């Protein structure tokens, strides 16, 4: 059995936060500098009462348009912002989408590496004969975790969702994978409170970091320098490993899409690994870092604009929160 990506659609919430708005809110923050350094001009943010599941639903409806939804026999939802601790949001989504009830569905809790892991799971389910048509959704709303006065994280992250249909195919269009995990970095991108380890604390104290950003332990915390160091260590290695496992060299790759974490950081990685500029996607201008959604958004953008053509070999690499990372090569 082999698998291929059949279709991708994305959905971004309507509400936007621009750099100009952040500049007016944070005194020493420059809209121009944010754009130059991060590559972000605006980001979409969920409104009150809007959740990752809502975004997942919208992106799924788009991808299921003109598609026989009764043929979907497995649903995988990747989110770190589920509607409830239980039940799985994927169960709720199955019902909302009117999919068959004799199908499988589960959530996976991953961030920036989520799409790579999701592709591997979808391919695996198809390979063992359990599924023929997998609906894989990435949906994220980090904005819900970020403190209103955390200028650093409010600048970087955006919300969004992307739904991908992966089908059984004659030809293997999703090739070999490489994965990595290092839990030593668990606390470098974390929402400390609200889970089983530390309860939500209504009296949590606000703390200010060296950049002047405020947050409590109920909010998202990211150690930017450590994340950058982690990517410098891990990403070149996973690129080499993916190429090796697929018996390829960088010159055999037509295009490269990394998780769109930060334009500056990704440009540094590009140069370090030796990827040609014209073969490298680096664009988060209108979305910010949408975590697990960045890769499918980028892939769709490239396919729609014919930046990637049929039969192109595309290297995909996701890396971040966990620490978790992974890579693969797909034939478009």
């Amino acid at each position, binding site marked *: 059995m082999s698998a291929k990506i059949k279709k991708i659609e994305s959905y971004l919430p309507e509400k936007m936060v621009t750099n100009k708005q952040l500049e007016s809110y944070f005194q020493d923050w420059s809209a121009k500098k944010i754009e130059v*350094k991060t590559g972000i001009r605006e980001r979409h943010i969920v409104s009150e009462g809007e959740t990752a599941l809502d975004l997942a639903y919208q992106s799924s409806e788009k991808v299921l348009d003109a598609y026989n939804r009764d043929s979907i026999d497995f649903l995988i939802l990747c989110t770190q912002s589920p509607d409830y601790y239980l039940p799985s949001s994927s169960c709720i989504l199955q019902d909302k989408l009117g999919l068959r009830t004799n199908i499988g569905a589960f959530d996976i809790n991953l961030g920036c590496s989520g799409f790579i892991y999701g592709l591997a799971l979808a391919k695996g389910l198809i390979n063992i004969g359990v599924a023929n048509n997998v609906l894989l959704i990435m949906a994220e709303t980090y904005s819900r975790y970020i403190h209103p006065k955390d200028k650093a994280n409010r600048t970087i992250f955006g919300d969004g969702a992307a739904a991908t249909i992966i089908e059984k195919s004659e030809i293997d269009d999703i090739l070999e994978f490489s994965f990595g995990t290092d839990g030593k970095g668990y606390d470098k991108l974390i929402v400390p409170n609200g889970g089983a380890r530390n309860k939500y604390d209504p009296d949590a104290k606000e703390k200010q970091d060296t950049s002047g950003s405020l947050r409590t332990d109920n909010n998202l915390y990211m150690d930017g320098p*450590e994340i950058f160091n982690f990517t*410098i260590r891990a990403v070149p290695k996973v690129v080499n490993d993916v190429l090796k496992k697929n018996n390829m060299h960088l010159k055999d790759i037509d295009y490269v899409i990394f998780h769109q974490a*930060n334009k500056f950081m990704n440009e540094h990685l590009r140069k370090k690994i030796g990827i040609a500029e014209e073969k490298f996607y680096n664009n988060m201008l209108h979305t910010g870092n949408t975590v697990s959604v960045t890769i499918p958004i980028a892939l769709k953008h490239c396919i729609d604009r014919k930046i990637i053509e049929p039969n192109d070999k595309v290297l995909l690499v996701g890396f971040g929160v966990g620490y978790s990372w992974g890579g693969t090569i797909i034939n478009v």
Partner: protein
Amino acid sequence: MKKTTFLKELADALEIDDDLAEESDLRNFPEYDSLGVMCLIAYIDEKFGINLSSHELARITTVKSLIKFIGDENFD
């Protein structure tokens, strides 16, 4: 690398218009914010292949302290 070259390249990397000296305290420059720190990490990795951890960054004050961290043996 010559220290004079390093001082110039470091200023360029951090987009600091002033001339840097070994005694310059990086924390006094508004350019050395969270985005500036990213630039420093990238520059040190590119030129010296060295990772600057958060812990080590917290101890960087003057350019001299940065040179000491990188190691005098890396400079002419």
